[in-house]
């Protein structure tokens, strides 16, 4: 029986889709059967980030409206046979699906997978409500910015009102150097306000940009700090007790890389 986890944030652009793609990949790398669903109908992205755009024949709305069977619409990942994507429709909008249809859909997937991850659209309207309708758990992604944290707080309230239980939190794009200088909110600041369970701290990392543009998950990149952080989040979700990476003592990622090169040259 699958655990159905919705990844949401309130604010746009904080890394929901990247998180969904990487957690899905990381969980599948651990051997779990994983389905990732793009619930951002009309603004689909998850297929692009996973490099599966050119394989789409049927989408979520086709399944809901009966033009395709669920099995036909699920796209197998390029590398991991245990990972599947159910893409969103691009030519429709959020009203194409109802909450009950989303619940039916997740229930159909429940028996065949270990994890179903749902990538929620930004906002608090119908699209968000559909995305959490079928969820057992909610994972909130935020960045250490006042506006993103404010929106995350609003989402926590709505998730609690929807009786989904307390959500857990990933703080994305932390820049340890800025935090050390007191110029960025620290993870502690964010936790103090939101008061929910932390499952991940992901450092700001340029390798995210390159891997996302190539359509490959960053968790494959052994050198990427963000990739390691997402692998850790996946292990925590699976129930392992993994200590958080010590980011605050390290230099910026760029400095680390420069340091490595420097040493090699010497």
């Amino acid at each position, binding site marked *: 029986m699958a655990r159905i986890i919705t990844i949401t944030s309130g604010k746009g652009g904080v890394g929901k889709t990247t998180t969904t793609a990487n957690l899905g990949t990381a969980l599948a790398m651990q051997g779990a059967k994983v389905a990732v669903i793009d619930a951002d109908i009309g603004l689909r992205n998850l297929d692009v980030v996973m490099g599966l755009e050119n394989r789409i024949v049927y989408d979520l709305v086709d399944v809901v409206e009966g033009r395709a069977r669920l099995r036909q619409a699920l796209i197998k990942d390029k590398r991991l046979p245990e990972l599947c994507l159910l893409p969103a429709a691009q030519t429709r909008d959020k009203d194409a699906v109802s909450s009950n249809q989303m619940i039916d859909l997740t229930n159909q997937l429940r028996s065949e997978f270990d994890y179903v991850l749902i990538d929620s659209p930004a906002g608090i309207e119908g699209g968000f409500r559909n995305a959490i309708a079928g969820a057992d758990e909610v994972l909130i992604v935020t960045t250490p910015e006042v506006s993103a944290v404010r929106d995350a707080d609003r989402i926590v*309230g709505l998730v609690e009102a929807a009786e989904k239980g307390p959500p857990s939190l990933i703080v994305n794009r932390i820049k340890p150097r800025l935090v050390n200088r007191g110029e960025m909110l620290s993870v502690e600041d964010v936790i103090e306000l939101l008061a929910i369970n932390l499952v991940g701290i992901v450092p700001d990392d340029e390798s995210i940009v390159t891997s996302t543009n190539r359509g490959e998950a960053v968790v494959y990149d052994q050198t990427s700090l963000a990739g390691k952080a997402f692998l850790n989040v996946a292990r925590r979700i699976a129930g392992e007790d993994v200590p958080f990476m010590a980011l605050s003592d390290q230099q910026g990622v760029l400095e680390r890389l420069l340091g490595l090169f420097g040493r090699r040259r010497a």
Partner: protein
Amino acid sequence: MGDLISIKGGRDGLRLRLDDTAEWAHLMSALEQQLAQNSGFFAGARLILEIGDRAINDEQMTTLLGSIQQHGVQIEALGATARESRNAARASGVTARPLPRYSEPAQPAVQNEHEGMLVSRTIRSGQVLRHHGHITLIGDVNPGAEIIAGGSVVVWGRLMGLVHAGALGNPNVVVCALELRPTQLRICEQITRSPDKAKNLGPEIARIEENQIVVEPWEGAKRG
């Protein structure tokens, strides 16, 4: 508030109770006056409307709901003993339910204001805690959240959102918190905001003195 209109707290939310014997026109103008005077309290509120034994027709119901909605109040349900009134409400799309006869006479709001409410949770951005009496909260009020009370507000936690005490017109109320740094602090009709460079001084208390909101440390307030 006048004797014709009162607010009561119930298990399912706030109830706006209208006198059922006064002349209709008189009642309507009293209602209009109350809603306009206390817009800080009523704007955005969701209330249950109780009209007692009064029988009102479709047209009167439309007028009544219209004038209430104009002040940003949503009526969640109507309680009335008369079937005619309930039918009129349903015709306007409002849930209606029978109501036991008013057992006690309407109390003036000044008395109601002493009814307290104790809440123990975090009030998050976008959430509103509204009560006609005093509010005691054990937990934080996050930025973007609102606390609106007819009486005083006591927060055992950090008050970072918007707070409005005395929102039904009583200036003799206080706001206190373990950490008092609200986005905006309103008492009765006075409005102020936290200084831009806020120092954390521990528990503080705010009240009106000579038509101004004054904030002082709890220790100082005790000595004074």
